């Protein structure tokens, strides 16, 4: 990485190049976020919108036990789906990085990933509904007599969430594992580590940043999920995303929607800071410990 040693010190040119994007994102991303923060402290207008009067009503409304229940459920569903996603994605990323046909596997992960998300959700409706693919197949095989209720419940929401976000986890994991020097595993084995030991004490610590990135990129979008619980969930699968949208489109309570958005933004920010700190730590550890990484990772 010699970009730093070669950094030119042209101030004007740097600003000229970066300013268009900086201005664009400030106006269309940062200012809207600021408006949300502002609106969350204002009074609700009669027909949507806000009135220019300071108020904490939105925040007291948030403490409504119904909302709290949805908040806890969202957290629970998010933790569970993220955990399942990472657990499934880790061996995939590993196998892909070790494969001779990396591009083929990447293509196979990316094709469903690029397919319109609504079409994929619709496909899941076609699979899980009472006369859907799965029920009909099981009936044809004589495994079940009556259709099972597979859709419009929590299980369906989690399954489809895991489905939607697995590629988000596989891609960063693949990228980090691909950079990992597999000879370190060989060395650990030579020095007497068992196979699981070499994986958990050598591979996993070395790809920590990839795991953190994968967690962030699944946890945050699932935490703000809207379409999946709406289309495959039942009455008891509502998540915060659905509440926010209802506040905007149905109840027209913009301050409350803003307050909820602020909460999600804060949760996301905490996640991102955690990610940045943990990758920064890793980098400084690698630098300070030794020039040559300990190939056994402390196994021996």
């Amino acid at each position: 990485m010699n970009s730093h040693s070669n950094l030119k010190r042209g101030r004007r040119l740097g600003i000229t190049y970066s300013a268009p994007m900086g201005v664009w994102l400030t106006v269309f991303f940062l200012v809207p976020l600021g408006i949300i923060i502002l609106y969350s402290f204002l009074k609700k207008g009669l027909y949507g919108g806000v009135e220019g009067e300071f108020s904490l009503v939105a925040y007291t409304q948030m403490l409504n036990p119904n909302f709290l229940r949805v908040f806890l459920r969202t957290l629970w569903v998010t933790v569970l789906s993220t955990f399942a996603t990472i657990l499934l994605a880790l061996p995939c990323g590993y196998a892909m990085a070790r494969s001779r046909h990396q591009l083929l596997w990447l293509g196979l992960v990316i094709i469903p990933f690029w397919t319109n998300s609504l079409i994929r959700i619709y496909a899941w409706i076609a699979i899980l509904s009472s006369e859907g693919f799965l029920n009909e197949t099981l009936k044809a095989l004589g495994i079940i007599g009556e259709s099972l209720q597979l859709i419009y419940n929590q299980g369906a929401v989690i399954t489809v969430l895991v489905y939607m976000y697995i590629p988000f986890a596989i891609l960063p994991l693949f990228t980090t594992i691909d950079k990992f020097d597999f000879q370190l595993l060989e060395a650990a084995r030579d020095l007497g580590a068992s196979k699981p030991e070499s994986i958990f004490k050598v591979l996993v610590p070395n790809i920590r940043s990839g795991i953190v990135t994968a967690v962030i990129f699944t946890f945050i979008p699932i935490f703000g999920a809207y379409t999946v619980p709406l289309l495959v969930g039942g009455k008891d699968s509502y998540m915060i995303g659905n509440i926010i949208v209802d506040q905007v489109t149905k109840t027209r309570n913009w301050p409350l929607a803003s307050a909820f958005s602020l909460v999600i933004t804060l949760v996301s920010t905490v996640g991102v800071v955690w990610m940045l700190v943990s990758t920064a730590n890793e980098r400084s550890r690698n630098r300070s410990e030794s020039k040559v990484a300990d190939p056994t990772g402390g196994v021996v």
Partner: protein
Amino acid sequence: MRYRFEPSRLTATPKNTVGPYKTPKHQVFTDHRSFGFSNVMLVLVILFLFLPLFVVVLYSFNASKGMRWGGFSLEWYAKLLFDSDELWRAFGNSAIIAITSALVATLLGSLAAVGVKWYRFKSRNYIQVLSFLPMVLPEVIIGISMLIFFTAVKIPLGMFSIFVAHATFNLPFVFLLVSARLDEFDFSVIEAARDLGATERQTLMRVIIPSIMPGVMSGMLMAITMSLEDFVITFFVSGPGSTTLPLYVYSMIRYGVSPVINSLSLVLILSIMVLALVFRRFLKTIAASR
């Protein structure tokens, strides 16, 4: 004879370097039996990923309207091609927005990446943080904040607001992909080009631009696919007469299932396969941006 510049030489791939012999990755550590745990998991997950695609494609050839199998038919393809004006109009809107927003995002994002990676200036950190945040906020938040913003500054909701929203959420990805490419850039080739008598302009056109082009291209590809795909943000910032394809599909799902979605799915899946095949060189770069 004019020297033809090969961008591939700029990257740090150790293809032709002389050094200690390194075992190719797939041969290291004899743990790569075809039926090892991770390989089996990979195949299972890929099957899981393709199951829904397989099911919609299967149903697209179904003669009956419901989910029960009623024999083979091409009825829904005929309907998709000849009797779906509204759908194709929505597709047209999507295409216009995808192309314009991707162009703007690619231009602004690539320029900013060059600015941030090659120069030092005061607001450099601000730009870097700012380009990172939109990627890690849930779509619902971006959608709502933009809706409230457009309403507050009285920009009417429609094609223009969708274009602005899409360019905004695409910018960070282009910036990231081009930045990653610039990290690999070897500055000595610029000096070499200048030493060999190239003018500033020639260096830019024949050395710098060709070498960052893969990053720019994968950024643009990513931007186009994300724009075509987006439902949640578009849902908030669209207005009358600006229905995009995902919005149209959504209305079809919500208000009575139409088998035309199935036939549309196959068309979309096939185009994505072609896209992935054509741009297979960039797949690794795109994966790294996630």
